[in-house]
């Protein structure tokens, strides 16, 4: 079956015409397939090629002088055209690479700036909130201090801290209270004053009173009816619960 196919193919003149490049596209594909697949077809094709060369050589003619140089000169001019093209191509790719790296550089810079921008705007937001909070505090302090309904209590220390002087401002209408600690007796290094408030039977830690405040800052006290404020002496860094025996001042408001 296969042998017959090959025989039919070889009996046709497709291979001869393929040799001379005068086959149709379909015939070319067929010829190339047969040559690739069947050794006997390949052998005939190779013989045909050799015969063609032998036959053509019979008609060889002396080439005229100068023709070779003419051809080579034309090819070299093609080449320079080509190499000029390559030079342009090289320049173009160099520019493209430059452009790409510049783009990347700017993109990267943009990313960094965007991050910074986010950070800065977050900071501004925080500051704004902080400022609002502080303004609110100041406003409240102002309200308390300037309100005629605000009661002023002078707080003095007990015998453990005779020099202690503080002023508490309580406004039962606005339900705000502040204390201004004006003077604190000197304490050993390992001790500090701490502020407490007993509100509805619960003892709240209001924090350590810094010497540095020096009466400049008002400390907010949580407001409640019948609340009691305490100042105690505690170990440095503050305590979780007040040491009752170290109470140096109290204020009922």
């Amino acid at each position, binding site marked *: 079956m296969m042998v017959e196919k090959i025989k039919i193919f070889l009996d046709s003149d497709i291979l001869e015409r393929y040799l001379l490049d005068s086959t149709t596209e379909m015939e070319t594909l067929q010829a*190339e397939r047969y040559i690739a697949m069947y050794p006997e077809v390949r052998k005939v094709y190779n013989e045909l090629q050799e015969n063609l060369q032998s036959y053509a050589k019979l*008609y060889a003619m002396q080439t005229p002088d100068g023709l070779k140089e003419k051809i080579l000169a034309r090819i070299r001019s093609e080449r320079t055209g080509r190499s000029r093209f390559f030079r342009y191509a090289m320049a173009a790719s160099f520019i493209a690479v430059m452009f790409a790296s510049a783009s990347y550089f700017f993109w990267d810079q943009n990313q960094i700036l965007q991050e910074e921008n986010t950070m800065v705007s977050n900071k501004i937001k925080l500051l704004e909130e902080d400022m609002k909070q502080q303004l609110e505090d100041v406003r409240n302090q102002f309200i308390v201090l300037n309100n005629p309904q605000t009661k002023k209590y002078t707080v003095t220390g007990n015998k453990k801290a005779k020099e202690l002087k503080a002023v508490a401002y309580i406004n039962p209408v606005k339900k705000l209270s502040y204390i201004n600690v004006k003077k604190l007796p000197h304490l050993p290094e390992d001790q500090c004053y701490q502020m407490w408030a007993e509100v509805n039977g619960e003892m709240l830690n209001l924090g350590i009173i810094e010497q540095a405040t020096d009466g400049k800052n008002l400390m907010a006290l949580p407001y409640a009816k019948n609340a009691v404020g305490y100042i105690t002496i505690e170990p440095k860094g503050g305590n979780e619960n007040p040491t009752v025996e170290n109470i140096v001042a109290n204020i009922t408001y």
Partner: protein
Amino acid sequence: MSTLLEKHIVELLQERNDKAIALLYDNYGDTLLGVAKKVVRSDDLAQDVLQESFIKIWKKADSYDPAKAKLFTWLFRITRNTAIDKLRSVSTKSDKEIQIDVSNVYTIGVDSTRPELMDVQEHLDKIEDKYKIVLDALFFQGMTQQEASEELDIPLGTIKSRLKIGLRELRKIYGPALLALLINLV
């Protein structure tokens, strides 16, 4: 033609080294000029064809596939097609029909043959004319088999069989002696 030289030329072509063209010209120029002359039948036109063929060979170097054809077969196809195109453009210009002078198809002028090929000429004369006419018409005149059949007044089937036999008998007719001679010449 040594395969080694062919390989070297093909490598140079693929590297786009113009030494390839110089080597091709030295080794195949005479034969290809003969092919062109057989088609266009004018020395001047044949030289134009050879020049254009080499430019095409240079430009098409990438398309040469050693697995599909021997180097010479590829060169032959390019030269032959260039020559046929040239002939067509010239005849269109001069508005002249291509007249196939049958006696010219297989008669080789002494001036167009290298003297050292004279021995070969004798061999060539031994080939039966009926094959030579067909081979020349198809190989060099750019005729299709149908055209050859009409021009030579030979039935198409006979054209086909003479092409086949002519091509295949070449080797038998000349035998290894011709090949040895040809190798020496190149």
